[in-house]
C-alpha cells in the first residue's frame, strides 16, 4: 500500500477513533467507531492479512457495533447534556492517558525494528485463510475449544441476564 493510502486510512482510523470519545451523542460515537474499524480493516489489508481484515468488518462492524447501536437506540440515549466536569479527575485521566502514550512512543523509539521496512513476502497473494485455519484447527485446537466454551458461557449469560423473569 502506498504511503499516502496508509496515512489516509491511519488518519481515518485514528480520527474516527478520537470521534468515539469526543462525540457527545452515543450514536455518533458508535458510528465513528464503525468507521474507525473499517479504516482499521483496511490497514489489515495493507498488511496482507485478508482474513483478519474481513473478520474485523464482519464481527466488529457487522455484529458488535450493530449490537451497540441497538442498545443505544433501545435505551434511547440521546446526546448527553453537559455535566459539570470534575476538573481534577478529568485532568488526572488525561494526564495518565498522555503518560501512557509518551511511554508507548518512547518504547517504539527504542525498538530497533520499528525503523525497518517490512521484509518482502514470497508472494503478495498469500493463502492466509487456509493457513490461519490450519493453524487454528491443528495447532491451536485447545484454545479454540476453550473459546467455544467461552461463547457457550456468554450465550447462557446473555440469556439469563435478559430473559423475562417468571412472575
Amino acid at each position, binding site marked *: 500500500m502506498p504511503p499516502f493510502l496508509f496515512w489516509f486510512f491511519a488518519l481515518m482510523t485514528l480520527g474516527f477513533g478520537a470521534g468515539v470519545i469526543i462525540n457527545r451523542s452515543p*450514536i455518533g460515537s458508535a458510528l465513528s467507531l464503525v468507521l474507525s474499524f473499517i479504516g482499521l480493516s483496511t490497514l489489515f489489508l495493507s498488511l496482507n492479512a485478508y482474513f483478519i481484515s474481513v473478520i474485523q468488518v464482519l464481527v466488529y*462492524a457487522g455484529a458488535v457495533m450493530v449490537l451497540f447501536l441497538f442498545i443505544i437506540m433501545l435505551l434511547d440515549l440521546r446526546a448527553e447534556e453537559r455535566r459539570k466536569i470534575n476538573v481534577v479527575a478529568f485532568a488526572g485521566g488525561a494526564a495518565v492517558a498522555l503518560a501512557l502514550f509518551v511511554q508507548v512512543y518512547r518504547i517504539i523509539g527504542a525498538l530497533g525494528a520499528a525503523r525497518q521496512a517490512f521484509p518482502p513476502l514470497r508472494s503478495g497473494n498469500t493463502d492466509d485463510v487456509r493457513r490461519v485455519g490450519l493453524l487454528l484447527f491443528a495447532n491451536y485446537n485447545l484454545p479454540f475449544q476453550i473459546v467455544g466454551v467461552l461463547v457457550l458461557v456468554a450465550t447462557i449469560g446473555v440469556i439469563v441476564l435478559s430473559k423475562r423473569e417468571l412472575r
Partner: protein
Amino acid sequence: MDYFLIGTSLAKIAGLLAVVLGIMNYSVYAERRISALIQDRLGPNRVGPAGLLQPIADAFKFLLKEDFTPGHVNKFYYWLAPCLAMIPAIATLAVVPFGSTLFGVPMVIADINVGVLYVFAIASLGVYGIVLAGWSSNSKYPFLGGIRSSSQMISYELSLGLAVIPIFLVAGQLRLTSIVRFQIEHGWMIAPFIGDWTNIGKWLLAVPMLVSFLVFTIAIFAETNRLPFDLPEAETELVGGYHTEYGSMKFGLFFLGEYIAMITGSAIIVTLFLGGWHLPLPSWHGGFHWAVVNGSAPGWRGIIGGIFNIACFFAKVAALLFIFIWVRWSLPRFRYDQLMRLGWVFFFEIALVNIFVVAVIVAYISK
C-alpha cells in the same frame, strides 16, 4: 501501477453497475408485472410497449417529487441512512464472478481469497442504513421497523453463515471464483453427483446440500426483508416501517437498495450453489458432455463464450429473482415472534446439524 488492471477494473465496474442497475429497474417492473399476473391482473402496461418504460417513469417520479425533510428528525442521520442502505448491497457485487473471461480478463472485479467472508462482512453492514433510518426518524413506527429489521437481519445472518459452511467443506475454498471452478469440475453444489454418477456418497451429499441451499435461500429472503419476512415494513402494523418518514428519492434509495440486495443475494446463491456462470452445454468440439463453454477458447468463439457465460449468469440471477417475486406473492407474512423463533430454533439448528452431516459424508463416505 498496473494501468491495464485499473482500466479493465474500471470498465468492469462500469459494466456491472450498468447491468445491475438495469436489472434492478426491471426487477421493479417485473415485480409489478408478475404480481399482477399471479393475481390475474395485467400490471403496468401503459408506458411504452407493454409498459416497458415504466421503470423510467418511476425513476422520474422519485426524482421529481418534493424532497421533504420532516422537522422532528435527526437531520444528519436521516440523510445518511438511505445512502448507507444502498452502498453495501452494491459493494458486495465486487467479489461475485459474473462471467468466465472476456478478452482474457476475468469477469470479476476483485478476486479475493476471502470472497465469501467479504460478502458476509459487507452484507452485515446493510443493517446500519435501516437501523439509522428507523432511529433518526424519531417516530415510533419507523423505530419499531428499524429495530425489527436489524434484529431480523442479525438473526438470519447466523443461518446464512452456517448454511454456507457445507460449501466450504466440499470445496475447501473461500474464493468465489474457485468455488465456481470447483462446481464446474465436480458438479454444481446443488447436485454434487454430476460427473460422478456412480458415487453413492455424492448422491447422499445432495440431500444436505439441498437443505443448505434452502436454508441459505430462505435466509437471503430474510436478509433482504422480502416477504414472507418483510416484517420491518409490515404495513398493517407499522405503516411503512423504517421508511415511513421518507419520501422522494430518499425513499427511492431504500426501495432500490432492497432490489439491489435481492439481486446481490441471487447472484451469491447462483455463485455458491448453482454453478455461477457455468451452463452445461454440448461442447464446441462435438459430442455431449459436461464441457465448459467459456472465454478461454481462441478467437471469436472465446468472445462469444465469454459473453454467453455472462448471459448465463444473469439469466440464472433473473430466474432466482423470479422465484423471489413468486414467493412474495404466494406466501403470507409471518408474525414477528414466529419469524424470530423460526430463525433461532429452526433454521439455525438445521444449518448446524447439516454441517455435521456434510462433514461426515465428505470425510467418510464420498471419498
